[in-house]
């Protein structure tokens, strides 16, 4: 999951099919018939209706990889780096800021960091939808 490549763009044909579905819906098509389903495959190469942006996608996946690494680091430190023979001897137990241990600081950082990355993403991907 975390090793997913940012290059992996979204399947454009899938979006085309969805766009076709949305058009059917707007036209009041009651339900998908096999014939309709087949006709959607023909639509596979039509340009996408809502201008899906690869740049936003790539930025999103890059930020996702960053967060994945941070989260995995936390889980790994908790599981493998903090206790030996049942006693806390480092890792998350180490005091880092004002006597507060890494467990709390890392936990807060994961929460605040998620929001910071989300804001950054919204900023970088702005205007990509027109």
């Amino acid at each position, binding site marked *: 999951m975390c090793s997913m490549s940012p290059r992996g763009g979204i399947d454009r044909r899938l979006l085309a099919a969805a766009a076709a579905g949305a058009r059917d819906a707007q036209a009041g098509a009651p339900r998908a018939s096999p014939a309709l389903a087949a006709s959607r495959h023909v639509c596979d190469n039509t340009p996408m209706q809502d201008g899906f942006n690869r740049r936003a996608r790539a930025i999103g996946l890059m930020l*996702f990889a960053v967060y994945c690494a941070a989260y995995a680091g936390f889980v790994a430190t908790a599981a493998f780096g903090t206790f030996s023979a049942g006693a806390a001897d480092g890792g998350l137990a180490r005091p880092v800021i*004002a006597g507060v241990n890494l467990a709390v600081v890392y936990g807060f950082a994961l929460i*605040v960091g998620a929001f910071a990355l989300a*804001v950054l993403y919204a900023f970088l991907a702005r205007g*990509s939808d027109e």
Partner: protein
Amino acid sequence: MIYETELLPFAVFLAFVGVVLGISVHLARRAKSAGAYFAAHGQVGWFVNGIAFAGDYLSAASFLGICGMIAFFGYDGFLYSIGYLAGWIVALFVIAEPIKRLGRYTLADALNARFQSRGVKLVAAIATLVISLFYLVPQMVGAGALVKPLLGLPHWAGVVMVGVVVTVIVATAGMVSTTWVQFVKGSLLVVVCGVTVVLILGRGFQTPQAPIAADSVQWIERGPNGTVVNGAPLAADNQLDSRLRAGHGVGFGSIAALPGGAKETGPLGPFGYLETFSQSTITTWKKTESRTAEGAVRTEFTPVERKGSDLLLPGANPTFKGVRADGLAPKLDFLSLMLALFLGTASLPHILIRYYTVKDAAAARKSTVVGIGAIGVFYVMTLYLGIGAMTSGALDPMDSNMAAPLLSRTFGQWLFAVISAVAFTTVLGTVSGLILAGAGAVAHDLLRDVMRIELDDGQQVKAARVAAVVLGAGSIVLGIVCEKMNVTFLVGWAFNVAASANLPSLVMLLFWRRTTREGIIAAMSVGLVSSLAWILLSPDTLEKVFGYSAVEAAELTIVPFSQPAIVTVPLGFAVLVAVSLLSRPRTAANGA
């Protein structure tokens, strides 16, 4: 602990319910079409949707469960806060925008966007119903558990009350009213918890009037001859707390020693609070249960002094104890749960359907940012609420879910009333989202697309309303039947099942062109069945649901640990890839 009937919380709750029902009935006129009923016309503003995400997501398990777990075991509860919040990153960066573009009303819509397959719809609808059910039961049982201590009413009364209100909300105006309920609840929860945290920091820490001796054991015996506390019958002046036989000025959960031998700290800043706590010694209570010769259940509480710094580390709770053990095997439960929390959020149907309520992908993105902000602030506060409760001297050692309301009572009746009312509305907001997701799966996916029953727009809404009433009634029955079941851990399982059943298909559909409908059907079925089977056969279920002792459960179980995600999520991916590759030629022949 004996709880008296409290009128103030009830009045505050009734006022909220009155406003919510008024809004619902008023909005019902606007929810006649399927687009309005299932997706609020897709016209909800991104900010409102963001806060509604918080209202949808922050369930009773988050509010009462996490605060209670921190109050009893320290840092372990906060692990849930971290995992639940981190899951939103998957939603934002991977799932949200494509889901918005691909689907119309339900999760099955998005999964089926390319295939127009009845099989995909069927499996996706079943997964939605199963996951929502897993999530629903603890909420309803939570409502019953809350009503008992807060209002002095029986369990079933709380379940029926919440069930009826939620059914009215969903059946009248669907997503339109659900959105507003969730918006109001989300804002209330964050604001009220914020006020409580400010009060906690303002109060700082104090030591009890007299130290609690290590041998001052408290016990309660419940059996055929009534309830006995510390040797005398249970009464208003003889309870487990009774300020621990007077003289201490506090009940369960208090500071034993502050740094420098101080008696009290006065107001503290957010970091100073945690720093002081980690340098203090805290009196916690070890619980042991046994059965007496007369057949009564005896629960004994022994004071144990623990260092604050140790309580701010994972592994004190039985669920997470493997973290402190040596070797990989005992840690698998912890690793698996953290994976399930991370991957489960973006696979929860009742969360994903909120993406259909905004107008476009940009609004979906912005509302997720707002949601992460609101939910993040709340989860940071859970640590303060939990530690505040742990040192408030006001814990009910028999019921960790009451930690947050009882903490608020130490600040006065009004805050208690508001927090209790907010706890009820917490259940309302989440349950309405769950019932709406279920109603959509039944009316839009199963009836219309799988069974191919001709339904026009209005009939689809009618069908969804009927489905909401049936699901509401069903949830009331389940909430009453499951009263005795230990249900707080069911939410963790809902995340496991959601991640196993939905995530592989969602991700591969978006990133792997060769995904076929057969691959999706197989992956969802295998993910759903394998995670459910694993959970049902796990030592945790055998012990907590079927009542076996820990030793018997360990002997009977055929799975090595209780949280399946670490096995069943990769299994889902593997099945999807294998079946897609095998079924590829047929799809290609169809002209793809």
